[in-house]
């Protein structure tokens, strides 16, 4: 089918261009824009018999009203997927930027994918050991889960993400079928280099596909980046039976690109100027994690977002939290005190851990001890608040034991080295050891049998 080409635009407005009286053009169709000898890609975002509205991924810089040629390609934005993508680096819309060859062989896939039929999904239950105590014990990562890291500027989210990718292990299976898809949206060159170098050092780079849209790359391109990355991930997981870990960073930049586009389109804004469909849009990305019955592979997503001004009620972390299956929240106060990883455990949560831990998955006592650690650490915060008013001396003995527990919990349990890989058994034993700072009567979330098996009171010295 010959593609239709139009010469001349009727309007250029921010990232949008308008073509008059298009014929036989479909909604969401991809277009090729030519100015001089330069080619760019765009997508139809609104269409009527009078006008086609097109967003230009690479930006509208240098386009002219009269000399721009627009070719409608008659299909949605597609990328070619194949095994050859592993070890390669692409830009935000899937074009190679590592001086390697184009991907010529392989299936063409629509980057928007299709929703997984809920009855085809398999409920994720397999525990992924990250080697990080706070995550493994308290917000366990499950294969097929989407578990974001809520971070802030200056917090070590990239180091944690890299540590997870290096250490992630499945119980009773070799790590060989792991692949990593890394999608960068508007992050700094230094951050991207750090991730790349770390993956090179660990040798994981050959099982990694990178899609990089950096801070100085066109903003609108970011809208396609996570979708391109997930299309590749779906291919690896559901066609090639790999367990794919997808890192998406930074979702805040993605949402801002979406807002820029929405305001250029003159849409009615919702909270903080973000479009009313931000929830549905984010869901169309996050819900592409999961497992499918009778297929071997899986997609586990770790999106990273920086909370503007550390505000967890900002629309981006807020809507993300409503879609993802929990969150890992980084805490600035812990970071300031030199505790790495600075995971604010009370605000963090893994919704899927309840079905992936305990008997047959990790260890029988896991559900109860994790609940106990949460409850006790939450009490620590209350005691600390009280101590800051009346002074530590005035506290009751039981409250004092909470302070000792809290300190040990932060310095021994949370804190670990960037290359320290703790097994789940080590992590749980450590948890029991620290509970020894508390008197037995305070342990209401664990069973009597578990107390007899594991609990050993630490006497004051």
């Amino acid at each position, binding site marked *: 089918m010959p593609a239709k080409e139009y010469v001349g635009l009727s309007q250029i407005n921010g990232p949008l261009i308008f073509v008059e009286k298009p014929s036989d053009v479909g*909604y969401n169709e991809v277009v090729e824009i030519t100015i001089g000898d330069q080619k760019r890609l765009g997508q139809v975002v609104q269409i009527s018999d009078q006008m086609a509205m097109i967003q230009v991924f690479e930006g509208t810089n240098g386009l002219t009203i009269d000399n721009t040629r627009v070719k409608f390609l008659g299909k949605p934005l597609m990328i070619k997927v194949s095994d050859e993508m592993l070890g390669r680096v692409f830009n935000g819309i899937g074009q190679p930027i590592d001086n390697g060859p184009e991907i010529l062989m392989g299936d063409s896939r629509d980057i928007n994918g299709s929703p997984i039929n809920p009855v085809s999904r398999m409920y994720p239950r397999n525990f992924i050991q990250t080697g990080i105590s706070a995550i493994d014990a308290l917000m366990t990562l499950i294969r097929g889960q989407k578990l974001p890291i809520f971070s802030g500027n200056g917090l070590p989210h990239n180091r944690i993400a890299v540590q997870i990718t290096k250490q992630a292990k499945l119980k009773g299976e070799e790590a060989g079928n792991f692949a990593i898809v890394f999608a960068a949206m508007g992050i700094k060159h230094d951050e991207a280099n750090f991730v790349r170098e770390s993956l090179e050092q660990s040798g994981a780079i050959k099982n990694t596909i990178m899609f990089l849209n950096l801070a100085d790359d066109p903003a609108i391109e970011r809208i396609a980046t996570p979708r391109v990355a997930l299309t590749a991930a779906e291919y690896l997981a559901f066609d090639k039976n790999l367990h794919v870990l997808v890192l998406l960073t930074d979702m805040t930049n993605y949402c801002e690109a979406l807002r820029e586009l929405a305001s250029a389109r003159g849409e009615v804004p919702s909270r903080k100027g973000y479009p*009313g469909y931000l929830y549905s849009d984010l869901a169309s990305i996050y819900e592409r994690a999961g497992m499918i019955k009778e297929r071997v592979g899986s997609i586990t997503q770790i999106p990273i977002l920086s909370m503007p001004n550390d505000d967890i009620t900002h629309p981006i972390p807020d809507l993300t939290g409503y879609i993802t299956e929990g969150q890992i929240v980084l805490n600035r106060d812990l970071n300031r005190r030199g505790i790495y990883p600075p995971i604010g455990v009370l605000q963090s949560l893994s919704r899927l851990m309840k079905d992936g831990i305990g008997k047959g998955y990790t260890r029988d006592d896991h559900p109860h001890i994790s609940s106990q650690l949460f409850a006790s650490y939450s009490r620590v915060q209350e005691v600390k608040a009280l101590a800051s008013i009346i002074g530590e001396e005035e506290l009751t003995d039981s409250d004092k034991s909470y302070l000792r527990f809290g300190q040990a919990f932060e310095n021994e349990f949370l804190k670990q080295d960037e290359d320290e890989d703790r097994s789940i058994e080590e992590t749980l034993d450590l948890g029991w050891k620290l509970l020894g700072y508390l008197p037995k009567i305070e342990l209401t979330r664990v069973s009597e049998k578990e107390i007899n098996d594991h609990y050993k009171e630490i006497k004051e010295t």
Partner: protein
Amino acid sequence: MNKTGDLYSINGPVVKAKKMTGFMMHEMVLVGNVKLTGEIISLEGDDATIQVYEETTGLKPGEPVAGTGNLLSVTLGPGLIGSTFDGIQRPLNVLKAQSGDFLERGVIADALDMKKSWDVQMSKIKDGDQVVGGQIIATVKETSSVIHKIMIPPNISGIARNVKSSGKYTIDTTLMTVKSGDGDHDIKLYQRWPVRIPRPYMERLAPKEPLVTGVRVIDTLFPISKGGTAAIPGGFGTGKTVVQHQLAKWADADVIIYIGCGERGNEMTEVLEEFPQLIDPRNGKPLMERTILIANTSNMPVSAREASIYTGITMAEYFRDMGYNVALMADSTSRWAEALREISGRLEEMPAEEGFPPYLASRIGDFYERAGRAKVMGDDQRIGSVSVIGAVSPPGGDFSEPVTTGTKRFIRCFWELDRQLANARHYPSINWLDSYSEYTVELKEWISKNVDENFYKMRDRFMQILTEDDNLQQIIKLVGEDVLPDNQKLIVRIANIIKVGYLQQDAFSDVDSNCPFNKQDEMLKIILNYYDRADKLVSKGVAISEVLDNDIVNAIMRMKENIPNDKIESFKELNEKIDAFFDQLDKKYQVTVEA
């Protein structure tokens, strides 16, 4: 016979077509060459605006829009129970068989299995009998838990003709023909009903029976009636979905309709995997045999999300009309409201608060008012009910936003989920001070008669202790617990027992997940007995450390786990243990026990 128009503009799920004169408002239409399902949402001159229930990628101006002549409707008949539908009642299993693990567009599927034959037991109606709308003409054992009653559609009455005898029939079979003033009507095993029109009933009744949920904080403190409405608002991670799942599992309703509206795909999978394994404590049958699921996950088309709520409530009313108690869970109504907002934005309507359309509150009101307990249509005075429990997901956990405030006006139970409690993993994280139920008054008589005449007295004492504890906690925050007098310290300790030993309930524990009313009653008695006896000693000047015996407190805290639902008599032993402990203390301090 069906009309067609021409598409001329496409903007996401909202499309516009011309040459649409003669189409009906809310008519279901098929859009484009791929025949996507849509609904007309406005008509102006020759133009129509249509919301499309599927992804519109690739649609082009000039493609046809075909009418169906019907309002957007659901098919009601045997085969509903145990099924999983999308927002416009397409069965997801059939879609999977047709298009694989990923949802494709333009797939048309019958809502109910037209080929399956059912064992139909006809009633005594014979040729020439007068029948009225709502009358039961046959029954089908749909699952081991639900007898499906085939009814005359509510708007039809007349003389029965050509009545079939009992036998095996597919749902398309005409069981009888009803001759009425406006012609002959074939009565089949199924009927269709437009989703936006409430099904009629004879008379609204007061909601005087509780919907027993097995969740202590709800049944004891903030109960809901059969036919009642409740909202569960809470920020993300506070446990809305777990509470909804708990109610879907243990509520003593005959039929459960669970709408996953704009939520996670894995949550529907969880229900689908778990419910067939779980046993209904009332009849020993798998829970799936009384459950209908409607799934519009957050990545499925947004306009079908708007429809899913209506699809669900119409099914609920249909089972109510059979005389059943139906409980409908909608998780989450905020996603439905956001779908309204998105469509409204694309229509360029003037927005009200936070971009929501001005008609948001009235739509919420219309929806919740379809709940209720009623004498239903028919000839035999059947009573049925629809209870509606909607989750609300306020952005940023801010309860002053439009969906929460709009919902609060139309519901009578408010179960507020508390971020602080959730962070401490106190589940269910229903805040006991800010939540309320207006049904406590209406339910008092039933509970006094069927559970315990003192139940409400004990409940009120619980509330008093918790309120007083809240005041004391303010003081403790400032100066510490040590400065409180002993009797106030005791209140703090008892409140702690109530919070940890009673209100906290482990949804994933085999024993504690479901707590029947009689167990709740026994637990109340134990805690209050302990409090009364301890208080008597403390007020006589006995040191509080004497009455706070570790073993006794521990036994009370753990009774929810240690005493199973079928060993209620064990509470007596526990009570005797408490009495013995205090008898010995009384003796030691020579406090006389009053008779």
